[in-house]
């Protein structure tokens, strides 16, 4: 809990530092060819000639009201624009996890059951290739094959199953690679434990031993990694949303950067950060459900 507060506070300070101290907001918002008078006028209207402490206070005040000012590009408050895009990002992340998690568990368990078998080696190599691929390139290859060559799905756009299939498949590859390997190694560790022998000795079926006993005990590192992956889905979706023209927060950030729309940029970064902190909190709560030894408060 305390930790999440630190992350948010750190991010808020970092965003202020980068936009107000590292760069000059007036020059960031105006086109490079703007005159010095235009810049000065904007500086005055934004109060950028005030001492930095006062500017920071004002920034915090705006933040507390979730008011980032009007988007320069769309001339309406920035926050609602971002919130409007949020469902699309969550939809994509959800679809990705829905594909990635069961598949990763399955692959991880298969290779843990017979370590060093052919199946294990294949899974390991595929996992390694998955984490070594530039995800947007994989997306391009999928577009090339399924959308251009086979014409099965549209190349880009927002909508139902046919639209979400390619971006979700692209995003799922890295989590599948990473989660399956952690499932494998933590399952292998647990398989050596005495309770597994006990369970087998008392005649339990292999399925109950693997799914009911081993997997449950191996769950903590797996859930931790799933949380990490969910968080980095929200972060990494920028590239994939841009590639597939998926109208989420990520592509909004890229558009805002192209339009030099500072309020919109700040709003999208903060919203994604809040989402990530939220995912981390959920993971912490999941620990208490999985492992009765973990308690909070």
């Amino acid at each position, binding site marked *: 809990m305390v930790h999440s507060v630190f992350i948010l506070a750190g991010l808020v300070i970092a965003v202020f530092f980068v936009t107000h101290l590292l760069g000059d907001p007036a020059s960031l918002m105006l086109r490079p060819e703007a005159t010095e008078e235009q810049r000065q006028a904007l500086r005055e209207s934004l109060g950028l000639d005030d001492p930095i402490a006062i500017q920071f206070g004002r920034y915090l005040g705006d933040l507390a009201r979730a008011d980032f000012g009007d988007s320069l590009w769309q001339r309406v408050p920035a926050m609602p624009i971002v919130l409007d895009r949020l469902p699309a990002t969550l939809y994509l992340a959800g679809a990705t996890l829905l594909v990635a998690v069961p598949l990763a568990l399955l692959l991880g368990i298969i290779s843990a059951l017979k370590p060093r078998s052919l199946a294990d080696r294949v899974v390991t190599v595929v996992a390694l290739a998955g984490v070594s691929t530039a995800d947007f390139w994989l997306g391009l*290859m999928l577009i090339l094959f399924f959308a251009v060559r086979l014409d099965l799905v549209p190349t880009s756009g927002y909508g139902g199953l046919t639209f979400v299939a390619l971006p979700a498949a692209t995003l799922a590859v890295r989590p599948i690679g990473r989660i399956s390997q952690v499932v494998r190694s933590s399952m292998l560790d647990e398989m050596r434990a005495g309770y597994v022998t006990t369970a087998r000795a008392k005649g339990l079926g292999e399925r109950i031993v693997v799914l009911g006993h081993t997997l449950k005990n191996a769950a903590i590192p797996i859930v931790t990694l799933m949380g990490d992956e969910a968080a980095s889905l929200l972060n990494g979706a*920028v*590239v994939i949303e841009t590639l597939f023209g998926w109208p989420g927060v990520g592509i909004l950030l890229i558009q805002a950067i192209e339009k030099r729309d500072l309020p919109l940029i700040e709003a999208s970064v903060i919203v994604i950060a809040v989402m990530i902190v939220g995912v981390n909190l959920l993971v912490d709560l999941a620990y208490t459900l999985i492992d009765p030894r973990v308690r909070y408060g």
Partner: protein
Amino acid sequence: MSGVGGVARPAPRGVADDADRLAPRARPRSRWVYVRALGRDKLAFSAAAFLTLLFVSAVFAELVAPHDPARGGLMLRNTAPTTADAPDGGFPHVLGTDALGRDQLSRLIFGARVSLAVGFASVLLSGAVGVTLGLIAGFYRGAVDDIIMRLVDTQMGFPSLLMALVVLYVLGAGVWNVILVLAVTRWMVYARVTRGLVLSHRESVFVEAARALGCSDRRILFRHILPNLLSPIMVLATLEVATMILTEASLSFLGLGIQPPESSWGLMLAEGRGYVTSAWWLVTFPGVVILLTSLSLNLLAGWVRAVTDPVTRWRYLAPRRAAGAAVE
């Protein structure tokens, strides 16, 4: 670290115990032992060979590249890969040409310069900062440790790619800024690993002995503790080069990384994207090179980990007959 770390095969039960008994006691005599061991592991050898080839061609790009990467020709626009001699009688455009008629193989070789330079420079920078802070945090403990680790934990929770994009928007794109931004977003990985390793060494006898001999803190840290941490840090750094190359590709793809006329693999993919329906080779080959580079770095890191780990090392370094018998 966690994910890729899991890829190294844990020894099956019983093997590790046997290893302790069977392992030759003496340390390997020279580094030739490692070279010979590399020759025996096919996968790691191919990885090392590919990376060497890549390095040599990147360094000597002017000599290796069959064409001038900047010279195109409107007649040559989007030529498909071919083995026929180039129209000017030169080396065939085996990987095709891009929308400006520039030879793609040559562009890939010159792009390797930028991609590799960015990968290694950012790893050196973030590694130097992260390792130093990790050493300090682990050795001195107390308030310094608390502050550094709090900073590490906080930044770990940041959406790093988004922050990198925002910082590049503020600072402006370009090779140096990309290196700087990548280093700033990844230093904490080294700090965390180094601190953990220092904690396990700082109470050991050799540190106590060094202190009894009157060594200064700095000498203990850099002459006695640091050499013991080098191999895990090298493994991490190798993996990080792959991460950095992938991130640089993403940043360049989004238009906030490397800028023309410089070129990198990510930028080539961004430029080829417009021709995805008409020129498949433009979006295929740069990605294949990124994949091979990153895969090779991952494989090599796994091999270095196994070879430097005292528990698994003997299997790779022992004379062929003993090792062969034990591995099967």
